[in-house]
């Protein structure tokens, strides 16, 4: 930034980094979508797993989701944020160095994810699979981004922050909080760690993160981009700035509460489930407020739909935002969720959001941005139109096939005959019935990818025809505002909002009578404040002042997003591990009280996590008759207290496994893991015969057990010291049993450990050494 004269400043925008992020999103988008097509092929044709552990569905699916979210949409967000922030603040980004550290750091993280996830190095939590060294890199790069962004806010030449910038602030603050809390973990090696949360605590924290990764990574920053780029493309201001104020505050406050709707009808405490459901339904209002604000911005510009591909993409993207945010709360209603959860319906729902909302916003942004960044016209509008139609066809085919498949699966699983027993007891029937829809999904995915490849060609042809542009402006210097931070933080509207939010929370804690007294007092207070504040006339309104004070604005956003998380997570996390165990003891039912995993079972569990079994199998039997008939006794909270990471799963391409222990013989598991078709004809599960060849390094087991001990698992010193011996002793039992069926297996093999873990699921401790009777028989007595 340099001075043109005493009253004005000359500002040259840093569009180099915008161009870099633009190219990155263009390329990573193709990679993410291609991975989607590959795993869709694997679900239709199991042979596409290629018998290579690196390319199996369980490992590639996390790579696909991480690639689509963080590489494709992430780079798009950064391109949009860097471009619009500079122009809305009339200031260059504060530090070119930080901008480039952000760019290259993010790309290195993506590459690291692309290497480690296919290697099976994962935390085993959805959208949070990256191992701890990469997590640290993510936090460092995110902090660099935040410093650069807030530093630029401090150097701005526009007094007020436009609505797009509020959404960026909410994104930066909330993602930092979510990512750090959910990734608190204890490393056991450079590539392995255990989450500090266990069981239901881990489940709640994970889905508080997982849901809000969708909310604050895939939604709020993209809404900011919508509020900036849609008016530009339509050449008219946003329909209602007032509505955007209501949209913003209600969205950021309510969104954070909705995480538990991913855990409805599970062992999560009922109060948390209900909060998640109620706040999800409340989300309808702000989401649709934002959608309508976007669509109505096009009032008077609808004719551009015929001629401008950018408007086409933006209009359909916002429509998909509306559809996805209608469907989300619908699925968050407990009774609807009972049908839809674990089915392909959820897959259809998330792809309506990602392909429709995020994907088409990305396309609209690129078609608008690239010609301006390179000072030329879009290479081909007709090609962009073709991309629009083939992409729309792809999404609709994908989503409708998953809807049909998902609802069918839900009804199939629930169906009972006249006597109240399962009408379709064989799980595999439901899967084979979905095969056609899986193939339709694949066609839809290929269509969408084809459209995206057209975009790539169009973008690169446009870049080739143009050259990078330098944009400079002369802008009037900004006088100091003189606003007081503390005056804003303790202003009337903030205090009223705090009381209105805080009182119901206190009511919930304090009991009915105290609650009603507090409610009445609150009412008196609110009316008093309304009368007091309503009669005041100031030169500037409250929100006008807040918009001119980034620090006060950021603090209020932080408070708004922390409330929901604290109310839901703190009571669950501070509850002692003994509580559920004691509750079980009080009922005299000890059968389901958990005991720590044996060393071999622990290693088997880590293999289960590493292979990504949780992406297709749940470990959570819901308390429904059709579930208990199919899988066994419903899952209880106490059974998971030593599970880190929790493995409840979110999808059942295969059946639930929580009570699979003891259901089949060891040899059944051996055959099933080698080729699932041998025991379950029609299965699309990959072959895991590599597990027989690969070995567990038991020398690390002691370190893992010591780490778990620090986290509260009641292993003794002797348990840890004897880890290797105990593991081999239990392994010997498994292979001895297998040898009676003419199966030869190495006791150190991963297969042995995984079988031991599967046999433990849903049961108490299993024998870890030969019994005295067996020993005496072996001794010839």
């Amino acid at each position, binding site marked *: 930034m340099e001075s043109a004269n005493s009253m004005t400043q000359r500002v040259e925008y840093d569009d180099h980094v915008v161009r870099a992020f633009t190219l990155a999103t263009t390329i990573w988008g193709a990679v993410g979508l291609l991975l989607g097509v590959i795993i869709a092929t694997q679900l239709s044709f199991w042979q596409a797993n290629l018998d290579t552990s690196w390319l199996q569905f369980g490992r590639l699916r996390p790579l696909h989701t991480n690639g689509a979210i963080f590489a494709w949409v992430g780079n798009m967000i950064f391109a949009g944020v860097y471009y619009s922030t500079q122009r809305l603040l009339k200031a260059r980004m504060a530090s070119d160095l930080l901008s480039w550290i952000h760019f290259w750091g993010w790309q290195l993280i993506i590459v690291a994810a692309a290497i480690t996830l296919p290697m099976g190095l994962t935390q085993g939590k959805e959208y949070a699979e990256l191992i701890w060294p990469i997590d640290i890199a993510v936090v460092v790069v995110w902090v660099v981004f935040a410093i650069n962004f807030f530093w630029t806010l401090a150097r701005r030449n526009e007094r007020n922050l436009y609505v797009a910038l509020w959404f960026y602030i909410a994104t930066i603050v909330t993602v930092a909080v979510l990512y750090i809390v959910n990734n608190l973990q204890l490393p056991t090696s450079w590539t392995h760690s255990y989450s500090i949360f266990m069981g239901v605590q881990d489940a709640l924290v994970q889905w508080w993160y997982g849901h809000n990764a969708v909310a604050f990574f895939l939604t709020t920053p993209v809404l900011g981009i919508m509020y900036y780029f849609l008016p530009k493309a339509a050449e008219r201001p946003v329909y209602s700035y007032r509505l955007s104020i209501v949209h913003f505050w209600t969205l950021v406050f309510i969104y954070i509460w909705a995480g538990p709707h991913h855990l409805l009808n599970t062992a999560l405490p009922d109060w948390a489930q209900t909060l998640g459901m109620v706040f999800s339904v409340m989300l309808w209002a702000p989401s649709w407020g934002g959608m309508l604000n976007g669509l109505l911005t096009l009032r008077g510009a609808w004719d551009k739909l015929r001629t401008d591909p950018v408007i086409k993409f933006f209009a359909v993207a916002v429509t998909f935002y509306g559809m996805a945010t209608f469907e989300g709360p619908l699925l968050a209603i407990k009774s609807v969720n009972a049908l839809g959860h674990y089915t392909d319906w959820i897959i259809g729902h998330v792809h309506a959001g990602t392909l429709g909302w995020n994907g088409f916003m990305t396309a609209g942004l690129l078609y608008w941005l690239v010609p301006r960044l390179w000072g030329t016209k879009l290479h081909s509008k007709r090609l962009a139109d073709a991309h629009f139609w083939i992409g729309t066809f792809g999404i609709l085919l994908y989503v409708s096939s998953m809807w049909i498949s998902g609802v069918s699966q839900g009804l199939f699983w629930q169906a009972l005959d006249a006597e109240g027993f399962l009408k379709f007891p064989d799980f595999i029937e439901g899967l084979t019935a979905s095969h056609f829809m899986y193939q339709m999904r694949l066609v839809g995915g290929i269509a969408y990818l084809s459209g995206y490849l057209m975009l790539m060609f169009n973008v690169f042809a446009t870049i080739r025809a143009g050259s990078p542009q330098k944009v400079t402006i002369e802008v009037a210097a900004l006088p100091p505002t003189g606003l007081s931070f503390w005056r804003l933080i303790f202003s009337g509207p903030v205090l*009223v909002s705090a009381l209105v939010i805080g009182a119901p929370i206190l009511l919930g804690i304090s009991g009915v009578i105290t609650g009603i007294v507090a409610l009445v007092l609150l009412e008196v207070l609110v009316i008093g404040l309304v009368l007091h504040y309503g009669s005041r006339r100031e030169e500037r309104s409250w929100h006008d002042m807040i918009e001119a004070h980034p620090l006060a604005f950021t603090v209020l956003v932080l408070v708004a997003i922390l409330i929901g998380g604290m109310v839901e997570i703190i009571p669950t996390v501070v509850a002692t591990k003994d509580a559920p165990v004691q509750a079980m003891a009080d009922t005299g039912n000890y059968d389901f009280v958990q005991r720590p995993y044996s060393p071999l079972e622990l290693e088997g569990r880590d293999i289960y996590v590493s292979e990504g079994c949780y992406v297709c199998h749940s470990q959570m039997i819901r308390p429904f008759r059709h579930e208990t008939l199919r899988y066994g006794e419903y899952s209880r909270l106490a059974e998971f207290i030593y599970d880190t990471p929790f493995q409840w799963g979110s999808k059942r391409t295969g059946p639930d496994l929580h009570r699979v222990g003891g259901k089949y013989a060891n040899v059944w598991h051996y055959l099933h893991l080698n080729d699932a078709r041998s025991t379950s004809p029609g299965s699309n599960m990959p072959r895991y015969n590599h597990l027989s060849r690969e070995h567990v390094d038991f020398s690390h087991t002691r370190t893992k057990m010591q780490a778990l001990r620090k986290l509260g698992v009641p292993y003794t010193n002797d348990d840890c010291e004897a880890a290797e011996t105990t593991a081999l002793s239990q392994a010997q039992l498994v292979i001895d049993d297998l040898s009676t069926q003419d199966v030869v297996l190495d006791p150190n093999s991963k297969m042995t450990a995984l079988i031991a873990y599967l046999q433990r699921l849903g049961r108490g401790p299993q024998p870890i050494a030969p019994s005295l009777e067996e020993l005496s028989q072996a001794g010839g007595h």
Partner: protein
Amino acid sequence: MNVLIITVFVSLILVAAGLIFFVSRLRGGDFEHGDRLSLLPLDEDHPRNQQSRHERL
């Protein structure tokens, strides 16, 4: 049941108070600053207080 009646009654009063507050702020001109701010994204295309220049690098 009495609890429910009191809770619903008090909640309705709170909603009414909120609406009164909202309307009073609307009439007090709290949101009129938005009329100018909503034009910010269009500044680059229709500069009011700035001059912009695009050139090849």
